[in-house]
C-alpha cells in the first residue's frame, strides 16, 4: 500500500480518438481498475505501470477532451482532476499529453492549455506510421526545443515508442514546459487579478491559479460536476465585473484567448510540420464517399446493423443455453446439498433463479458491447451519427442517439450504457428514458406466445404472424420517438442540440482493446446491477412463496394463495378495463423481473404440467391450449384475440425489466429517473391497452 501512495501519479490526457485507451492498456497491461467517478457516470480508469527501475507508477486514463473549457461531463472530469478539484482522485504530478500526430494543430490546443498547469508534461505523438504514410514530416527535435519538454513519437497500437515513453516517465528530472506564450494584452490585467484572487481566496497554488484564471474566461456555462468545489465569492465577483465591462466595450474575450492560443500553435506548427505533397483522396476519404453516399450509405448502415443483429441472435444462442443449463444445474446441486426448507428455496428459487434469468442474457449483452466497441473503434459510429442526425433532429435529439437506440432492439442495457457518448446531459437522459421502448429480445417470447394463442396453428399464414410481430416493433419504435419528442419539448427542454462532431479517420480496430472494453463494461453492469437484481429477485420470490400453502397444495394453488396471487387479485379492478384477469395480473407482477418470465409464470398459473421454464425451446403448444381454454368466471373466453393483442401492446410499452431499472439508476445517479421511467412507461402501456381493448370491444371484437 505504501508504494502505491508514494508512487508518482501520471495522467494521460488527449482528444477523443487519439488512441488514449490503447496507450493506457499498453502501459498498464491488465493491472488496471475500472470504475466510476463518484457522483457522475464517467468511467474512471486507473492502473499501474512500472518504471525502468521497476518502481510502480500510477497512471490515470482521463476521459477524452478537446478543451479544458468543458462541454460534457467527461471533459468536466478531465478538467477537475487536472486542476486538483476532485477529492476522490489524486492530483496528477505529471501529465502525458497524447496527440494524434496526423492532426497536430487541433490536438495541440489542449496541450497548450495543459502546459499552463505548471506541471511536468511529456508529449507523446501517436500514429507516427500514418504521418509517414501521408508523406508528412514532423521535426521532433525542434518541437522538443520549442516546448522544452520530452517529445516522444510512438505507435500505441503496436507498442512502438513505448520503451522511450517509459524511459521518460522514469525520469525524476522531468522539465516544466516553457511558456512561449503571453496572455493577450487585452485580457492580461483580468487574468492577473483573477490569478491573485484565486491564490488568495481559493487556496490555489500560484501556477495552477494562472491556469484556473485563464479557464474561467472560456468556461462559459461551466459544467459543475459533483465532487468539484465552487468558486469563492470574491473571485466570482471579480469575474462578473470584468465580463460586464468587456460586454459593454463589445470585447470578445473568449475569442481573443482562443485566437491567441491558435496563433501560437500555428507558428509552432509552421516550424515543425512539413506537409506531404498533396496526394489524392486517402483510403478514409474513399470509404467515406461510399459510407455517407445518399444511396450506398443507407445500404451499408442496413447491412452493418443486420449483421450485428444476426450475429447477436445466432451466436448468443449457444452460450445462452449453456448458461441456462448451468443455472438449472447449480440450483439442482444446491437443492441436493441443502436440507429442504425456506433457506434452500430462497437460494435456489429466489437468488439463483432470479440472477440466472439476467445472466442468461449476458452473452447477448457482451456481443452487443463488442460490436458497439468495434463501431466506435473503427470510426464508423461517427458516420452513422452523421447520416442519421437529420432524422434524429426531428424529435430534438442528435445523431449520437441513434446507435444506443438501435442497440436497444437487442437489449436496452448496452444501449443505455452506450449513451455515454452523448455529450449533452439532457439528450442523454432523453435517450435513456426512451431506449427501453425499442422492442428488446426479451419481449420476443411474450409476443410469440400471444401470437400462438391468438392464431391457431396452421390456419393463419406465416406472413400474418410475421407482420404482427413487425407491427409490435414498429409501435415500440414510434413510441420511443414520440416520447423523445415529448420529453425534449417539455421536461428536458434545452437549447437545440449541436452536432459538433469529429469524423475520425477510419482505423483497423485493436481487437484486444475492444475485447477489454467489452469485458470491463459487462463487469461494470454485473457489479452495479447485481445488487438491485438480487434484491428484486428475492422480493419477487418472497411474494410468490409466502404465505405458505399446505404441503398438499399444487404449484398453481400455492401461487394463488401467495402474496403475488393476492396482489393479482388486488390489481384486477385496475387491469379489468384492459381485459386482463387476476391470473394475467400475476404474470405481469412476476415478469417485472424480466419480460420473458411472463411465459413461465403463466405456465404455472394456468397449471400446465411439466412446463420446462428454463428451456427457451420448450414446446409452447400445451401452454397455448391451456390459454385457449382459460375462462372468466362467467364463462367468457379470457384470451380472445383482442386480449392477446392488448397484452402485446402492454408489453411493448410497460417497463418490465429490473436490470434496466438498475442500470438507469446507475447511469442517472438517482432513483428519480428510473422511477419516473417505470411510471411513464407502465402508465402509457395501460392507456394504450385501454384504448385498444375498449375500442376493440366496442366495435365487436
Amino acid at each position: 500500500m505504501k508504494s502505491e501512495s508514494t508512487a508518482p501519479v501520471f495522467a494521460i490526457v488527449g482528444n477523443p480518438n487519439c488512441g488514449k485507451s490503447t496507450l493506457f492498456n499498453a502501459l498498464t497491461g491488465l493491472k488496471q481498475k475500472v470504475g466510476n467517478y463518484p457522483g457522475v457516470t464517467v468511467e474512471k480508469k486507473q492502473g499501474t505501470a512500472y518504471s525502468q527501475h521497476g518502481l510502480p507508477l500510477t497512471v490515470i486514463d482521463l476521459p477524452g477532451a478537446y478543451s479544458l473549457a468543458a462541454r460534457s461531463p467527461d471533459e468536466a472530469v478531465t478538467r477537475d482532476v487536472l486542476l486538483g478539484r476532485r477529492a476522490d482522485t489524486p492530483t496528477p504530478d505529471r501529465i502525458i499529453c497524447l496527440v494524434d500526430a496526423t492532426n497536430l494543430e487541433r490536438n495541440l490546443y489542449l496541450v497548450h492549455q495543459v502546459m499552463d498547469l505548471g506541471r511536468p508534461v511529456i508529449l507523446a505523438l501517436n500514429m507516427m506510421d500514418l504521418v509517414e504514410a501521408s508523406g508528412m514530416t514532423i521535426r521532433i527535435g525542434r518541437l522538443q526545443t520549442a516546448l522544452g519538454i520530452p517529445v516522444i513519437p510512438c505507435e500505441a497500437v503496436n507498442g512502438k515508442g513505448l520503451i522511450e515513453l517509459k524511459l521518460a516517465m522514469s525520469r525524476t528530472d522531468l522539465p516544466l514546459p516553457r511558456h512561449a506564450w503571453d496572455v493577450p494584452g487585452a485580457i492580461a490585467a483580468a487574468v492577473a487579478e483573477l490569478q491573485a484572487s484565486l491564490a488568495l481566496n481559493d487556496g490555489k497554488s500560484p501556477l495552477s491559479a494562472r491556469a484556473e484564471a485563464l479557464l474561467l474566461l472560456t468556461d462559459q456555462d461551466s459544467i459543475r460536476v459533483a465532487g468539484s468545489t465552487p468558486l469563492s465569492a470574491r473571485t466570482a465577483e471579480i469575474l462578473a465585473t470584468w465580463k460586464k465591462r468587456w460586454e459593454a466595450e463589445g470585447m470578445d474575450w473568449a475569442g481573443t484567448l482562443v485566437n491567441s492560443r491558435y496563433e501560437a500553435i500555428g507558428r509552432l506548427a509552421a516550424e515543425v510540420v512539413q506537409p506531404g505533397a498533396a496526394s489524392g483522396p486517402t483510403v478514409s476519404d474513399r470509404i467515406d464517399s461510399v459510407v455517407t453516399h445518399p444511396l450506398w450509405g443507407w445500404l451499408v448502415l442496413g447491412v452493418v446493423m443486420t449483421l450485428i443483429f444476426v450475429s447477436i441472435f445466432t451466436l448468443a444462442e449457444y452460450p445462452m443455453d449453456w448458461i441456462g443449463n448451468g443455472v438449472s444445474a447449480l440450483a439442482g446441486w444446491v437443492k441436493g446439498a441443502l436440507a429442504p426448507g425456506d433457506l434452500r428455496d430462497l437460494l435456489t428459487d429466489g437468488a439463483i433463479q432470479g440472477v440466472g434469468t439476467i445472466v442468461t442474457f449476458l452473452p447477448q449483452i457482451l456481443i452487443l458491447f463488442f460490436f458497439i466497441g468495434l463501431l466506435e473503434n473503427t470510426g464508423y459510429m461517427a458516420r452513422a451519427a452523421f447520416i442519421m442526425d437529420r432524422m434524429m433532429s426531428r424529435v430534438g435529439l442528435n445523431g449520437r442517439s441513434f446507435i444506443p437506440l438501435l442497440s436497444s432492439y437487442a437489449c436496452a442495457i448496452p444501449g443505455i450504457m452506450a449513451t455515454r457518448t452523448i455529450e449533452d446531459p439532457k439528450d442523454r437522459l432523453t435517450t435513456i428514458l426512451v431506449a427501453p421502448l425499442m422492442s428488446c429480445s426479451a419481449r420476443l417470447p411474450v409476443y410469440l406466445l400471444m401470437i400462438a394463442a391468438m392464431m391457431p396453428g396452421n390456419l393463419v399464414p406465416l406472413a400474418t404472424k410475421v407482420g404482427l410481430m413487425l407491427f409490435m416493433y414498429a409501435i415500440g419504435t414510434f413510441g420511443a420517438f414520440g416520447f423523445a419528442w415529448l420529453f425534449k419539448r417539455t421536461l428536458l427542454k434545452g437549447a437545440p442540440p449541436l452536432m459538433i462532431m469529429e469524423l475520425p479517420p477510419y482505423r483497423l480496430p485493436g481487437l484486444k482493446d475492444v475485447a477489454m472494453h467489452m469485458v470491463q463494461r459487462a463487469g461494470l453492469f454485473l457489479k452495479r446491477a447485481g445488487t438491485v437484481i438480487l434484491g428484486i429477485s428475492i422480493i419477487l420470490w418472497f411474494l410468490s412463496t409466502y404465505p405458505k400453502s399446505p404441503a398438499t397444495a399444487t404449484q398453481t394453488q400455492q401461487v394463488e394463495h401467495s402474496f403475488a396471487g393476492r396482489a393479482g387479485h388486488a390489481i384486477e379492478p385496475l387491469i379489468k378495463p384492459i381485459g386482463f384477469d387476476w391470473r394475467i395480473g400475476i404474470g405481469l407482477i412476476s415478469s417485472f423481473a424480466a419480460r420473458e418470465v411472463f411465459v413461465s409464470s403463466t405456465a404455472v398459473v394456468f397449471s400446465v404440467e411439466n412446463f420446462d421454464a428454463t428451456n427457451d425451446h420448450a414446446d409452447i403448444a400445451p401452454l397455448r391450449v391451456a390459454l385457449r381454454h382459460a375462462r372468466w368466471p362467467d364463462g367468457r373466453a379470457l384470451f380472445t384475440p383482442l386480449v392477446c393483442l392488448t397484452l402485446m401492446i402492454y408489453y411493448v410499452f410497460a417497463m418490465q425489466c429490473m436490470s434496466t431499472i438498475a442500470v438507469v439508476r446507475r447511469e442517472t445517479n438517482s432513483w428519480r429517473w428510473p422511477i419516473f421511467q417505470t411510471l411513464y412507461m407502465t402508465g402509457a402501456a395501460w392507456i394504450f391497452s385501454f384504448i385498444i381493448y375498449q375500442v376493440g370491444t366496442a366495435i365487436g371484437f
Partner: protein
Amino acid sequence: MAAEIRLSELAAGKAAVIRSFPKSGSGFLRLREMGLLPGTTVTLVRVAPLGDPIEIKLRGYLLTLRKSEAEHIGVEPAP
C-alpha cells in the same frame, strides 16, 4: 475580393476562408476551440444524405456541424 457568403451556402468540394464568426452563443466557442477561426481555410466536404448536417475539412481533419450553426459563419470562397 469575393463576396462573403454563409458557410451553409458553400458548395460541396469548395474551399473558403472564414471571415466572420459570432462572438458568443452556444457551441461557437467550441467551434473556435476546434480550430474554426477567422482566417482559417475550410473545405466543405459534403452535406449529409438528408440535407443536414454538413461535413467540413479544416486543419487536416473532418468536422460536422449543423446548418443552423453554419449559417452564422461568414466565409469568403476561394477563387
